[in-house]
């Protein structure tokens, strides 16, 4: 296994005080601290070459877990092994095997061209110059970096910067990738480019990928398996399709015209009807019957899809919160 996590907890001690001057003065003598369980006793393993989506609402503990796995944070309890190492020791051999990309943080030198960061990373990671040139050539081709790496980073657009950021993070050819919101703020075309690149890198180098993203399209496109956490606790670990099927065992059937309005209502719950195109939610047991009926009426213009992952997640969190004790709380900002 590339990643082994057993009983991992990470707690933070957070200073709390009410607003106002009096509270500020009082806090000089009596500081109130709360313990926030950002991650609370989670366990999972990830095999070499797997692409796993790590999902959860804001404050669920995803980024904290990523930081523990990459060695930035010491776990409060539990054991973690990544690439055969205890991450918090941050041994050089471990750091050469992993990378952490945070969509909201950058490692590129802001006022210098990305090529300077590449030179720096090549030196500190001890990458052979010939191998670095080859990797950079590969990354330039896959990410379309030509013409970008000699402009100061501050003059690059968000999407260009993210591509250069990925190249900097992968120059040493890590075999485990922790990607925290790598497509945040990017337009749809750029999201697709980054997604394709991640899949390609995973396949070329048999790299293990753990990905968080608020864009469910990223997860659907990249991750056959998802781990879901909420309030610091693991609430699902398994196949993405199985999760969708368990949570919402319905399909969305879309078609254009052909079916009289009174018949549409009998097919299933209408979730959308605009521009002449209708989408109905159909229980899986009735799918064959509905599809053949629509085909008879509307012809070939028909599509069958799973419900959006956003709906699945919403239902999952709602169900879990209804059945579980209150979550542990929000991690610090």
């Amino acid at each position, binding site marked *: 296994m590339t990643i082994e996590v057993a009983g991992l907890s990470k707690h*933070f001690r957070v200073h709390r005080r009410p607003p106002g001057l009096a509270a500020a003065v009082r806090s000089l003598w009596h500081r109130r601290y709360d313990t926030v369980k950002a991650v609370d006793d989670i366990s999972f393993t990830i095999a070499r070459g797997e692409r796993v989506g790590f999902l959860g609402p804001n404050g669920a503990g995803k*980024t904290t877990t990523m*930081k523990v796995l*990459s*060695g*930035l*944070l*010491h776990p409060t309890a539990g054991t973690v092994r990544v690439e055969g190492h205890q991450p918090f020791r*941050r041994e*050089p*051999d471990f*750091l*050469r095997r*992993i*990378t*952490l990309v*945070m969509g*909201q*943080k950058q*490692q590129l*030198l802001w*006022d*210098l061209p990305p090529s*300077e960061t590449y*030179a*720096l*990373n*090549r*030196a*500190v*990671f*001890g990458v052979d110059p010939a191998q670095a040139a080859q990797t950079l050539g590969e990354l330039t081709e896959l990410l379309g970096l030509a013409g970008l790496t000699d402009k100061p980073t501050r003059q690059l657009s968000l999407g260009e910067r993210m591509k250069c950021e990925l190249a900097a993070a992968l120059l040493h050819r890590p075999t485990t990738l922790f990607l*925290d919101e790598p497509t945040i703020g990017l337009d749809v075309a750029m999201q697709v480019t980054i997604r394709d690149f991640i899949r390609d890198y995973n396949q070329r180098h048999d790299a293990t990928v753990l990905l968080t993203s608020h864009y469910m399209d990223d997860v659907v496109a990249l991750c056959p398996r998802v781990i879901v956490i909420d309030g610091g606790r693991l609430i699902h670990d398994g196949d993405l399709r199985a999760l969708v099927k368990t949570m919402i065992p319905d399909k969305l059937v879309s078609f254009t015209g052909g079916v009289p309005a009174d018949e549409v209502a009998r097919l299933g719950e209408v979730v959308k009807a605009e521009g002449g195109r209708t989408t109905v939610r159909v229980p899986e047991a009735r799918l064959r019957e509905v599809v053949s009926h629509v085909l008879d009426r509307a012809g070939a213009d028909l599509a069958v899809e799973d419900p959006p992952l956003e709906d699945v997640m919403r239902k999952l969190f709602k169900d879990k919160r209804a059945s579980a004790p209150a979550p542990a709380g929000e991690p*610090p*900002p």
Partner: protein
Amino acid sequence: MMRTLRAMPTLIRVGMVEAIAYRAEMVVWLLTTTMPLVMLGLWTSVADEAPFRAWGTRDFVAYYLVALIVRNLTSNWVAWQISEEIRTGAVSGRLLRPVHPFTGYLGTHLGAVPLRAVAVAPVLVILLWSSARGVLVTDVAHLALVAAAIVGAWLLTFGVFLCLGSLGFFLDKAMGIIEVYFGVFAIMSGYLIPLALLPAWVRDIAAVLPFRSMLGDPVAIAIGRVPDAGDAARLVALQWGWAIALLALASWLWRTGVRRYEAFGG
């Protein structure tokens, strides 16, 4: 270790490129270290009347111009840099590289030294052109000790600033401590007033603190106030001892601090 040494030329080169990119900031920074010139104006007007405790005008000129050179060659902004990187979480990037973060900071700030040398070159020209050159040491032993003392002052200052920056792991506002530090440094290092002119009790306190090794002692050796080479060598040895101690303390503070690090942001 070998890998770190192999990376060092690139780290220094990138540090130089950064220093050139931030040349405007560096000029502003250098302008904030002109206190010796203010003090020079003050003391030369005093000494114009009559020497002050055996310090004549050219002694003050030599002292403050050499102080300006040593201060600018040996100072850096690593404390502010570390403190800010801890506060914003940017230090995470350094923690994920397989070399000690101090190595990265060392490269950056060594890379800035050539630009600093260019910036203080005019001061050196003025010094050598003025009558104050007469008090500067010229024998090989003293010149070698001055060079060793400037390198030692650089290392010691770097060590002190690494310690101050690493306090950012423990304190929300480590910058406040840096302000207090500067107040103590200004008196106890001889930055404002030559240590020899301070009251005896202040000199006694300064004798057991590292600040004098950061500025006052190298300047004193350079302007011939430590005529015996053996005494000067002892001062340099003490200075290097302080540098090693402060670098070790910085290393311990960093190691302990990283355990508390909460990698905020993101």
